[in-house]
């Protein structure tokens, strides 16, 4: 028995259990959310290879699971990020009781998070790309359960992730020839370009974002938030492991400068498109794209503090996007719709759900006093072009959120939406509170998230 086998076995077992219990909504919810939380705790605290672990637990497990000469490993380099991904899943599964994102959400979601965890444990880490491809295939079931029509987005997503996987595997082959040490940028040009294209595809950076707006039009908002959060967390950690492993990549200053300008371009694109949308889900998707650009801006600082900030921002977006998804789902489930016309004056009929959707959107925008702001403040403190880009992004996406706020507050309409249950009110209220609380006290979130970087000695400078 070894730690990766235990974590992935538990995840698979939970997915099977949820399928078997699919007719009992409450039990499925409890199994998925508490199960994912348990796996997260195990990933954080399990004693691996005799190292530090859960106090009072004498059992120590092997950290390596070898399969056909390749292995999955859980150790100091990745246990924090593996635990983080399961924690995000537990957080999202908990809210799914209220959001009701579709009948395949728990089982498909558990498989998605299991595959992302597998990608984080894969050694050599380049094989993570294959796990992420598998994740994209399963994510189709989460985004398009049988009760929803697929349109073109699911195949676009699968195609783009497949191309990303191919680009990264080819980059890995090139990288093997270069080794992990310092190499002249000219010699590493092909590998660098392939890696960058692969990262762009996995992070859904324009022009590889095509599946996102289409998914926003057809998928349940909560399922969409879940897939964006988990998939992009997996992609971000893969990027970090790539840079950690290859000195020729992390020492290439021109690459970081290029990344900064690409991020500024993505931020401008996402912000402008967020302002132009007449669909709430699409606004949120483009806001999330601008958020990814801010993460990239933090990363492009080429310093351990910048890398830590990128991780912190990726944690903060979980709160913002999750709470937006929760609010938007409650509205959509009640039949309120998604467009400007449909949501006009909705705040009077569903104040709590509308507030959650708006607060979540403001948090994704990075508006002050929300969870998304402290990380942006830290990026702005670095000065330079990145600071101006962050200010512009906050301003533009906040304008989009303000426009939506004015839409939902237009004159009241005759709407009869079903009343919220006590549980709905509790989750929506807690979501709003978390957004504000983590905006006021970022120290509750950032320190332990950024600790995840300590295992990556190349990036943390350790």
């Amino acid at each position, binding site marked *: 028995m070894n730690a990766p086998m235990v974590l992935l076995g538990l995840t698979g077992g939970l997915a099977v259990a949820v399928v078997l219990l699919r007719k009992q909504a409450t039990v499925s919810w409890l199994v998925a959310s508490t199960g994912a939380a348990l796996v997260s705790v195990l990933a954080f605290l399990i004693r691996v290879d005799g190292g530090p672990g859960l106090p009072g637990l004498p059992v120590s497990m092997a950290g390596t699971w070898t*399969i*056909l*000469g*390749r292995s999955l490993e859980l150790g100091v380099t990745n246990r924090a990020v593996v635990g983080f991904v399961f924690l995000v899943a537990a957080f999202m599964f908990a809210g799914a009781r209220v959001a009701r994102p579709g009948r395949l959400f728990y089982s498909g979601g558990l498989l998605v998070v299991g595959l992302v965890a597998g990608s984080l444990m894969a050694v050599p880490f380049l*094989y993570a790309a*294959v796990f992420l*491809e*598998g994740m994209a*295939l399963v994510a*189709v*079931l989460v985004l*398009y359960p*049988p009760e*929803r*029509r*697929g*349109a*073109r987005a*699911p*195949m676009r997503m*699968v*195609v783009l992730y*497949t191309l990303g996987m*191919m680009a990264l*595997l*080819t980059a890995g*082959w090139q990288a093997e020839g270069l080794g992990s040490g310092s190499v002249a940028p000219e010699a590493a040009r092909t590998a660098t370009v392939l890696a960058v294209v692969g990262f762009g595809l996995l992070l859904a950076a324009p022009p590889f974002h095509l599946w996102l707006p289409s998914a926003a039009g057809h998928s349940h908002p909560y399922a969409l938030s879940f897939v964006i959060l988990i998939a992009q967390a997996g992609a971000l950690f893969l990027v970090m492991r790539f840079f950690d492993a290859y000195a020729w990549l992390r020492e290439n200053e021109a690459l970081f400068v290029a990344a900064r300008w690409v991020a500024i371009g993505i931020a401008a694109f996402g912000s402008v498109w967020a302002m132009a949308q007449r669909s709430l889900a699409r606004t949120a998707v483009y806001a999330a794209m601008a958020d990814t650009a801010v993460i990239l801006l933090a990363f492009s600082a080429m310093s351990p503090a910048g890398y830590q900030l990128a991780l912190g921002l990726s944690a903060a977006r979980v709160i913002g996007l999750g709470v937006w998804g929760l609010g938007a789902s409650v509205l959509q489930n009640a039949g309120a719709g998604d467009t400007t016309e449909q949501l006009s004056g909705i705040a009077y009929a569903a104040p709590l759900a509308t507030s959650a959707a708006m607060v979540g959107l403001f948090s994704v925008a990075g508006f002050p006093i929300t969870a998304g702001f402290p990380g942006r403040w830290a990026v702005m403190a670095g000065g330079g072009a990145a600071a101006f880009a962050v200010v512009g992004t906050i301003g533009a996406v906040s304008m989009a959120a303000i426009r939506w706020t004015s839409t939902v507050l237009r004159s009241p309409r005759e709407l009869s939406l079903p009343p919220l249950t006590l549980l709905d009110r509790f989750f929506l209220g807690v979501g709003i509170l978390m957004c504000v609380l983590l905006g006021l006290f970022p120290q509750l979130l950032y320190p332990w998230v950024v600790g995840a970087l300590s295992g990556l000695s190349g990036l943390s400078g350790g």
Partner: protein
Amino acid sequence: MIAQGVISIVAAVLAGVACAAAILLPRRGVVIPALFVQFGCAATLLSSLPVALAIAYAAVGACVCGILAVTKSREEPADASQAVVVPSGLTFRLVAVLLVGLASAALSRQVLGTQEGAGLGESLGAGLLFGLGLLHLGLSEEPLRVGAGLLSMLGGFQIGYARVEPSVALHGLLIALPLLIALVVAYLITLSPASPESRA
């Protein structure tokens, strides 16, 4: 050795012809048999892998075609919002197939030809499947045809990657991928209304 080289060249050409047929005649009755031929040819071209893996790839291909063949699409009229504006004339497709086929065959020889032990058949097969698969993707919108293009492209990639990557575990994962893709495509076919051209 010479016989093996001839077989691999024949397999590569056959794979390219099958892929081209699927692009030129985008009917269910052509696309699925063409995929079957492609998988068989690609398995022949995976000569650098252990024989068991090549056989497994052929078996996966048979399963993929079986899954797609038994999947019935919904017989509802296609939604107007999903209307597709993709060039679809036979002449256009023929010219595109010829151009892309020639370009990818030439490029693959340059890229893979430098690899030790890579024969003409392997590089030709990899290039044709990858290039024509990409073209198929670009010209298609319905799940079945996009899936067919994706599987062709993946087949081309696998032939080339088998030459440079020795890991059996990774190739095992890559060989299993078409099966997962086919399952997702079949699932999406059952969700999407049938379009006139794929019903034929």
